[in-house]
């Protein structure tokens, strides 16, 4: 239910619309400021704005952007007219900007559908004014300790602010995420036991180890990564949900297909990217788009055309070598651990070049490196990884972390200058070169990739 529009609201809306128009005229980014200014001038502005009838929200620690990008692509390719914050920020200012774009000068909604990536930490600033029809929660892990602290903190915010009318679409293999908004209507998605699942956790961190009800140590039928898997409390029965609405029963990496069962119907989809987290993201996308009555064909025809955006993952065969760039968000130990695990498990001998420092944070002084000790650098201690090159402002801290993972120092190049360090790349016996980079190191990643190509060229 929208709040009553006031004169202040209309004036704010016009100022925000005008600022958006002016910024676009100046070819400046208009994806955050108009919303920010609106919320400053009229704090409950979002509550007064008309919203689309259907709002798909996507929140969670990892995979929000990729999930939203897939939903947006599929909806666009199927002719839906909708607003989204693909180019904007996922906090209140960015969401308000997107909603402003979706209304006319009287604040009336022009669109029937919105897809919004919503930062989980910003739930307290968004959900009091906006009720998603469906809210995907991809997963919940520890993230940047400086901002998100720990999963209990984030869970408490989500539980407090998610509207009770919202239908939750949750990862049933995540015992934290699957218990968010406990009393809301739920749609669960899950991936059946995989051959690669283990009996015990290989990761350093697990954000839930004991039952939140009775403090008994949680047990697992199987562990996938961190706390993802089938967890249960042997004492009080607290567990991951068993009645799942969308289930992947088979992952066929050879043919790059997944089998999804829902309501006794079996459907096959093409895999966009083989990283397990992206398969979860695909499943969340299927679950939400089925609510909009899209058919498996409509969804899959688009999956077949989708590529993960290059700033997150890219592959290029360059002469005899495959160069892979992969996002490994600095300050986010889980995202880095997943990237390290993916790297070690990819077939073939490889070198890994890493620039994980948050260069944005570096600009403010020095980076808090505590998160390194929550990340599984141990996964890089693998026979298939022949060389590790680490560079950037905190290269000495990363070097020590690699030594702590018992990685042979002879395998490691550590230098501050990224190109100087990259120049030490040894191509002998390699098939792949991984470049693992932070979100704020896209330009540096391009430079490294170019340098790698020059080294390959020189070899001939």
């Amino acid at each position, binding site marked *: 239910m929208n709040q009553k529009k006031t004169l202040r609201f209309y004036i704010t809306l016009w100022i925000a619309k005008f600022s958006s128009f002016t910024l676009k005229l100046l070819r400046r980014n208009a994806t955050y400021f108009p919303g920010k200014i609106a919320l400053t001038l009229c704090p409950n502005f979002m509550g007064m704005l008309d919203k689309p009838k259907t709002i798909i929200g996507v929140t969670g620690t990892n995979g929000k952007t990729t999930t939203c990008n897939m939903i947006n692509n599929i909806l666009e390719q199927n002719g839906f007219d909708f607003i989204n914050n693909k180019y904007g920020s996922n906090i209140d200012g960015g969401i308000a900007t997107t909603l402003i774009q979706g209304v006319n000068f009287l604040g009336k909604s022009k669109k029937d559908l919105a897809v919004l990536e919503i930062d989980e930490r910003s739930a307290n600033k968004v959900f009091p004014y906006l009720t998603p029809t469906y809210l995907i929660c991809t997963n919940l892990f520890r993230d940047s300790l400086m901002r998100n602290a720990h999963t*209990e903190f984030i869970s408490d915010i989500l539980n407090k602010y998610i509207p009770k009318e919202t239908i939750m679409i949750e990862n049933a293999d995540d015992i934290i995420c699957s218990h968010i908004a406990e009393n809301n209507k739920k749609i669960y998605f899950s991936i059946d036991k995989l051959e690669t699942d283990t009996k015990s956790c290989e990761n350093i961190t697990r954000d839930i180890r004991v039952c939140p009800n009775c403090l008994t140590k949680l047990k697992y039928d199987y562990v996938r990564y961190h706390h993802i898997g089938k967890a249960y409390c042997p004492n009080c029965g607290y567990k991951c949900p068993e009645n799942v609405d969308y289930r992947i029963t088979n992952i066929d990496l050879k043919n790059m297909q997944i089998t999804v069962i829902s309501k006794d119907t079996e459907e096959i989809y093409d895999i966009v990217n083989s990283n397990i987290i992206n398969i979860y993201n695909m499943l969340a996308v299927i679950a939400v788009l089925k609510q909009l009555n899209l058919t498996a064909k409509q969804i899959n025809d688009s999956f077949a055309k989708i590529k993960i955006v290059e700033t997150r993952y890219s592959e290029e065969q360059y002469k005899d070598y495959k160069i892979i760039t992969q996002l490994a968000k600095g300050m986010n130990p889980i995202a880095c651990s997943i990237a390290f695990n993916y790297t070690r498990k990819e077939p073939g001998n490889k070198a890994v070049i890493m620039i994980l420092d948050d260069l944005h944070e570096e600009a403010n002084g020095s980076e808090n490196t505590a998160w390194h000790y929550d990340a599984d650098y141990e996964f890089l201690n693998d026979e298939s990884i022949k060389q590790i090159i680490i560079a950037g402002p905190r290269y000495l801290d990363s070097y020590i972390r690699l030594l702590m993972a018992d990685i042979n120092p002879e395998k490691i190049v550590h230098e501050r200058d990224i190109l100087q360090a990259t120049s030490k790349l040894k191509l002998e016996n390699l098939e792949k070169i991984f470049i693992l980079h932070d979100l704020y190191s896209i330009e540096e990643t391009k430079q490294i990739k170019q340098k790698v190509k020059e080294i390959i060229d020189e070899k001939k």
Partner: protein
Amino acid sequence: MKIEILYPEFCNLNGDMGNVKYLKKCLPEAEFIETAIDEEPAFCTQESISLIYMGTLSERSQEIVIKKLMPYKQKIEELIENGQVFLFTGNSVEVLGKYIENEDGSKVEGLGIFDIYAKRDMLHRHNSFFLGNYEDIELLGFKSQFTMLYGDNSNNYFSKVEMGIGINKESKLEGIRKNNFIGTYIIGPVLILNPKFTLKLLNLMKVEEPKLAFEKEVLEAYEVRYKKFKELAAKGK
């Protein structure tokens, strides 16, 4: 040599387990006892624990840990008086204070071993760098916390502040030290970031001929960060 890690299933936030990992590298022969929440602490049942360590934990976990440690309050007091070496990092020291106050004024009673109390502000997380002096050692670190500590620690502080905050934003005295109990809000791999302090700690633990793991590397990283933090301190950051 025995080292007890209290409640690692809860007290493992902010990279604090890096300290345990580093101690294992420095003391490969030592026995590390990980005490779970449903177990009696080893400091009650075993003699000669060289170090009792507890890391950062969530607010809910603080309340669980306080309940579990309450029956051992007297024992902990005795150990502190008798010179037992403790290292509590992040917000773990709060469980030993008088109480922790929530934003709504409600209070969680602590063990009351130290005459201090904490105030939570869950929507304003404090993040800062830290540079300070502990005896003749310059300490470096990071802070990231929802709480501030209050009370008079002028006679039992851990470190004087050169850059950053003490137990609260107005304080220039960081942490709590009583005999060989050390409690600091510095988070993460404190022992890796501060090799000179780690040597001191190993000496307190009565390690014979203490030797740092990756000594050359941690000292080099320390010197680089020390120079950087000094520059930041000079700029008044």
